[in-house]
């Protein structure tokens, strides 16, 4: 017989109580993990942003455009490697609920600036060659079951009318945080029709992406770019891609903070639940602990019995919670893929799950242990079970 054996038997003593506590911990850890993943998914665009890229937009607002002639001037600014541009297209595929981001881009320069979009060489060539071609992320293609060569029609919102595109390539993300749900097509194709229907908007881009040689020069180059177009018809606002992406997230930051807060509240509640279980258990076993002490067992032994049980229960719950969070995250991902292009349980989240469980186990065992260790034996023996 080993004391570890005793731990297991003690946990099995009140099967229902232990099972309910384990289940509660599992649910809490699941909720905690998923909520933290939601927070992470929210910031994924920020995470995926490269330190080597700057984004330039109209200083007044994103809804105003910039002339593409700016590209030439930008390219002459010291420290700038290459420049490309694009427009947020905002097209709808069949129904609004099928939302995914779609952009009109200048293909060659754009793909150079985004090496994290991994594309087969022949697909890349085919895309660049076909004016009506488009490329899309693997997840998006899988979601709608498109095949290379398929014609896909988007309904324009900003740019009215139906727009046909032909799938020429499917890109994969180089990094875990790379968004695989974007739809990219030729800016020229957009511009042609814009010239006919909305001539005032022709030859204008929504934003420029600037590749820089040295990330530490980002602030200087940004200032140089904005200085170049100072006092022109369309003044610019240049910032790092990270800052640019962060400005979108910032709008919803309050929600994210609320979610994060709730995730901690969940842990706090489960702490109370586990502490209650442990307190009940230790109270029932007061006489038993006194017997152990009578036989020569000391405070450290009693403490390991209570903590052992507390850890056994919470860690079992944690393991179940973590195991269940993978299929739940997958279901989440396929249901809400449009809003959360990247929804992965990260290693960090698992680590936080475990840390939270350890904290719960420690907190739950603390007062019962303190009491059991301090109770005088004679006193303990008097408390009949």
């Amino acid at each position, binding site marked *: *017989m080993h*004391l570890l054996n*005793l731990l297991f*038997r*003690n946990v*099995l*003593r009140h099967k229902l109580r232990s099972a309910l506590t384990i289940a509660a911990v599992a649910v809490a850890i699941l909720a905690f993990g998923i909520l933290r993943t939601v927070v992470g998914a929210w910031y994924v665009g920020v995470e995926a942003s490269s330190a080597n890229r700057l984004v330039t937009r109209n200083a007044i607002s994103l809804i105003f455009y910039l002339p593409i002639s700016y590209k030439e001037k930008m390219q002459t600014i010291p420290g700038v490697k290459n420049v490309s541009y694009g427009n947020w297209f905002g097209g709808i595929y069949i129904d609004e609920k099928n939302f995914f981001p779609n952009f009109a881009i200048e293909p060659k320069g754009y793909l150079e600036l985004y090496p994290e979009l991994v594309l087969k060489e022949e697909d890349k060539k085919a895309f660049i060659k076909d004016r009506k071609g488009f490329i899309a992320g693997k997840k998006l293609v899988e979601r709608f079951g498109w095949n290379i060569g398929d014609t896909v029609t988007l309904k324009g919102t900003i740019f009215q009318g139906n727009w046909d595109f032909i799938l020429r390539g499917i890109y994969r993300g180089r990094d875990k945080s790379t968004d695989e749900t974007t739809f990219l097509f030729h800016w020229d194709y957009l511009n042609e029709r814009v010239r006919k229907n909305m001539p005032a908007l022709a030859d204008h881009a929504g934003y420029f992406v600037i590749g820089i040689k040295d990330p530490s020069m980002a602030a200087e180059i940004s200032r140089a770019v904005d200085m170049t177009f100072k006092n022109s018809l369309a003044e610019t606002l240049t910032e790092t891609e990270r800052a640019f992406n962060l400005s979108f997230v910032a709008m919803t930051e309050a929600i994210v903070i609320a979610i994060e807060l709730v995730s901690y509240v969940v842990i706090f509640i489960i702490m109370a639940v586990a502490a209650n279980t442990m307190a009940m258990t230790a109270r029932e076993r007061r*006489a*038993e602990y006194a*017997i*152990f*002490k*009578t*036989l*020569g*067992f*000391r405070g450290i032994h009693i403490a390991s019995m209570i903590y052992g049980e507390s850890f056994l229960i919470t860690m079992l719950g944690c393991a179940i919670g973590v195991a269940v969070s993978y299929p739940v995250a997958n279901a989440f991902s396929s249901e809400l893929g449009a809003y959360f292009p990247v929804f992965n349980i990260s290693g960090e989240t698992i680590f936080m799950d475990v840390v939270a469980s350890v904290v719960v186990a420690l907190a739950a065992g603390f007062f019962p242990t303190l009491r059991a260790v301090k109770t*005088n*034996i*004679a006193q303990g*023996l008097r408390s*009949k079970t």
Partner: protein
Amino acid sequence: MSEPIVLVKNLLKSYRRGSEIIPVLEDISFAIDRGDFLALMGPSGSGKSTLLNLLAGIDYPDSGEIIVGGIDISALSETQLSMWRALNVGFIFQFYNLIPVLTAFENVELPLLLSPLSRKQRRSHVEAALEIVNLMDRLNHYPSELSGGQQQRVAIARAIVSDPSIIVADEPTGDLDRASAVDILELMSNLNREFSKTIIMVTHDPRAAKRARSIMYLDKGTLKDAPAESAF
């Protein structure tokens, strides 16, 4: 019976309930001989259990000395006292106090887990103890699967497994029927005679006390020579 194994001098013990101080043992001095089988008697609330707990080192006196086997145990730290108990004292309680999730074998093995004995050595000690209480056929039974008398025998085996020189018993037959009680008393006499254990037993039962070699009466916290009445 030769030199005393227990020597108590001017023992004082009181309990505190709120602001009220309740004196339980008032200036008690006595000696117990090695190899004695002592019955400690007295009316309910007279302080028998309190005294027994002090002798066995599970409670501290307010003042006075308790010298057991040459050591003043009232001066030991809590940790020292734990180790001392594990080596020197075996405990038998009225309600057996076995651990319900452990089998008879495991309950008896419990005190040995603190010793450096190997698994095999522990097994042979446990079996020897269970042999003495004649329970070898119930090794793997849980307490709930045993009768009261059998449970008390397991408790006795647990008390003797580490071969202590003193066994303390607080009303060991208090919860048993007549036949089982006789059984247990027989077993204890045997431990006293054959294994020369010093036994200190609190009891209300005059028939139990008859088994003892000597009797001590406690009344309202002081020792009495003879029973004032026989209505314990």
